[in-house]
């Protein structure tokens, strides 16, 4: 599918992907930095912005916005993540122009009304409480703090009860003014829409968007933290065992090798952790590994849920499987399998219009450009056993470990 890229005078980047297969358009509006700009004192700020941004503009109330969207059977949502804030819309092509106009108004002139703020604050506080119902969430949140300390990557997305309670309308307005600005915006449009039409709409509704404020300084990467082991007591059926290592960012030359390591260890039923720890030892139902794509330091985390009497075997097993990749080179056949798996799943993750908009918009927003799509696939193909082992040696040093279990 052909991709077109434009840059407007005010700094907006537009990626347009024309795909006439189905008569709909998916549009994603990515703003740089996401939660990276949060301090520990304002943890939860960006999430609260996403909960509030669709809840009122200078022209429409929250209820009117919901009516306008839902009466067209359209989808509008906003979400915060580690490196970006994104607003998603999906509509039939015939409704696209009107929903685009409304979304532009939401981006430019949100009012963050006090009454809506109280409701969303309350619901966020309840959401924070609800995480305690899930042992995996408890382990995950704690691990982020161990790995990234006071950097935003170490903070929970929803924030802490004490920080969310203190966030005010003024905080949201300041955030909007500083960070939701045209020169931080990447728009990705995929669907039954020509690039010309896409450009016309963007120029019409967002072309005159200018901000008088200078761009704030770019956020800084996290500082290394000492490896730590932690046990969190919680009455559960299963114990959660999570073993994590700091890992390289997406901009590192060995990023593709690291993706292959995560795929080899934790992706699918033929993955190493699944075969060794579930099939051969019957230690777990769920066992996996994840390596999120991040602008700064990321993590390779391997985890499982297991019976409390198996905690030690689980911990040793997860750690040994990681270390093994640093000690011995992977046989070429196994590396080839990991490559097919990774590239195949990558292709399948770009099937629908919203998946296309997500992939290309995200790359552009991370500063990688849409060409990263091709570049990344070529790099994965080129990874050698030596490169993979070298990358594993860099990554798999002393892990942090979190265990959530009864007593």
């Amino acid at each position, binding site marked *: 599918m052909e991709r077109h890229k434009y840059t407007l005078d005010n700094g907006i980047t537009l990626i347009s992907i024309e795909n006439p*297969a*189905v*008569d*709909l358009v998916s549009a994603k509006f990515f703003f740089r930095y996401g939660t990276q700009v949060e301090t520990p004192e304002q943890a939860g700020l960006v999430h609260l912005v996403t909960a509030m941004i669709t809840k009122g503009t200078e022209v429409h109330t*929250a*209820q009117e916005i*919901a*009516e306008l*969207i*839902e*009466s*067209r*059977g*359209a989808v509008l949502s906003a979400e915060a993540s580690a490196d970006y804030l994104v607003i998603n819309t*999906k*509509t*039939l*092509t*015939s409704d696209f122009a009107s929903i685009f106009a409304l979304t532009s108004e939401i981006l430019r002139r949100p009012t963050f009304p006090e009454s809506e703020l109280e*409701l969303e604050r*309350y*619901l966020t506080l*309840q*959401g924070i*409480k*609800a995480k*305690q*119902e*899930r042992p995996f969430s408890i382990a995950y949140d704690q691990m982020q703090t161990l790995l990234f300390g006071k950097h935003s990557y170490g903070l929970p997305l929803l924030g802490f009860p004490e920080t969310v309670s203190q966030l005010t309308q003024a905080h949201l307005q300041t955030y909007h003014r500083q960070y939701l600005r045209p020169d931080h915006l990447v728009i990705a449009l995929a669907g039954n829409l020509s690039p010309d039409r896409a450009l016309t709409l963007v120029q019409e509704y967002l072309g005159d968007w200018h901000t008088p404020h200078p761009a704030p300084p770019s956020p800084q990467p996290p500082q290394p933290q000492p490896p730590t082991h932690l046990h969190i007591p919680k*009455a*559960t*059926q*299963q114990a959660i065992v999570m073993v994590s290592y700091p890992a390289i960012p997406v901009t590192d030359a060995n990023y593709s090798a690291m993706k292959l390591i995560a795929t080899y260890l934790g*992706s*699918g*039923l*033929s993955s190493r952790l699944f075969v060794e720890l*579930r*099939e*051969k030892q*019957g*230690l*777990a*139902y769920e066992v996996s590994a994840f390596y999120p794509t991040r602008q700064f330091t990321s993590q390779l985390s391997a985890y499982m*849920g*297991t*019976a409390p009497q198996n905690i030690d075997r689980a911990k040793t097993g997860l750690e040994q499987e990681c270390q093994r990749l640093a000690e011995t080179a992977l046989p070429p056949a196994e590396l*080839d*399998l990991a490559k*097919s*798996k*990774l*590239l*195949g*799943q990558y*292709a*399948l993750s770009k*099937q*629908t*219009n919203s998946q296309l908009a997500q992939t290309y918009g995200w790359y552009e927003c991370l500063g990688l450009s849409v060409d990263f799509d091709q570049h990344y696939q070529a790099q994965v193909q080129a990874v050698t056993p030596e490169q993979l082992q070298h990358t594993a040696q860099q990554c798999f040093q002393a892990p942090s470990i979190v265990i959530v279990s009864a007593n």
Partner: protein
Amino acid sequence: MYPHGSSAIDRPPVTHQEYCGGVTLICQPMVSASASVDIWIGAGSAIETEEEQGSAHFLEHMIFRGTEFDYLIESQGGVSNAATSLDYTHFSFTVPAAGLATTLPYLAHMLSQPRFDPEDFEQEKLVVLEEINYCYDDPEWVCHQLLQQTAYNAHNYGRSVLGAYPVVAKLTLADLQKFHRRHYTPANMTIACTGAIDIALVRSLVAENFLQLPYHPPLQAGIIFPKANRCVKYLPQLHHARLLMGWLGTSAERWEDGLGLDLIATLLWGGRSSRLVHELREDYQWVHDLDGGFALQKYPGLFTISATLEPEYVERTESHILRTLSHMARGKISPQELAKAKRSLCNSFIFAMECPARLASFLGYHTMLGCHDLCNHWTTVYNEVVMSMEIADLQYLAQRYLSPDRLTVITCLPHP
């Protein structure tokens, strides 16, 4: 006559499903680089006897043991999945188009002749038992299980698909073999293929690989009507209360009523401007979250609303929901909210069917349930049926299905 929607999906026609030696096959070619296959076997947990509880699910695990299926799929860069539910066990995969000719026969062989190795069986039992523990740590699963159990009482829909821990712990390899012999028969299987497929090739693959299975007529599980009920339970892991209300809805033979119940669900809690979300979450602020839907199954499924909320709001939320439904049964629905709900539901369908694997799953499941009109003309029928619903139709559905005598209410509380 048709307001919108059908024009959004432009596809070559579905090939009429056919019966090759008992197997039902439905194909939808699409422009895509991949092919998706979905196999549904009418061998879910509801068909188990008391002593073989958990067999359907355990067997799903055993189908994969000792095979190279995962390797075959993943080395082509494909994905696969399997799941067991009340009425069916489900196997699916998506591979690059060229891989279909090797992958489909391989899966057919696994389904017809599982290895049933005794050592594998013991090893996999540990995994299945861990899966049961895993589910008991998920409060949503626990609450929903309680609703099913209470609503269906003695009917097999009231049992957990996974089976009870002590029963599963006692299952033998012979139990699974017996279950397999009885239920994994061609007449009990539905296959849906979508994406980049050559229909002639798919037909010959199915004819060659699924005909050699021994034929046994499918068994029917007896229908035992559930009884209305109520249950309050304390779950120490909860930090919020849950209110689950389930009405006994319709079954697959009346799938149009099922779409009508989906429409009612959309009208009530599909989006921020929908009636119950607007009132309960935004206006009164009694609930944190509202969820639910209608599950179309072989036997009557549940129309479920589930709310996450503070314990002190449980009673008034339940009364408010009951009041809303009784208004609906008296036809108090505005034309605007109906039009909005219709459009939302139709668009969600169009959005979802963009993906070949989702479409394969839709076609396979509904063909297995016998909803042939819905599948053969899926590009138009779904949206036509939804768009044709009038206020009086919803009123009728609310009277018929969403009445207090068909209702089960579960309240789960964090502490006494």
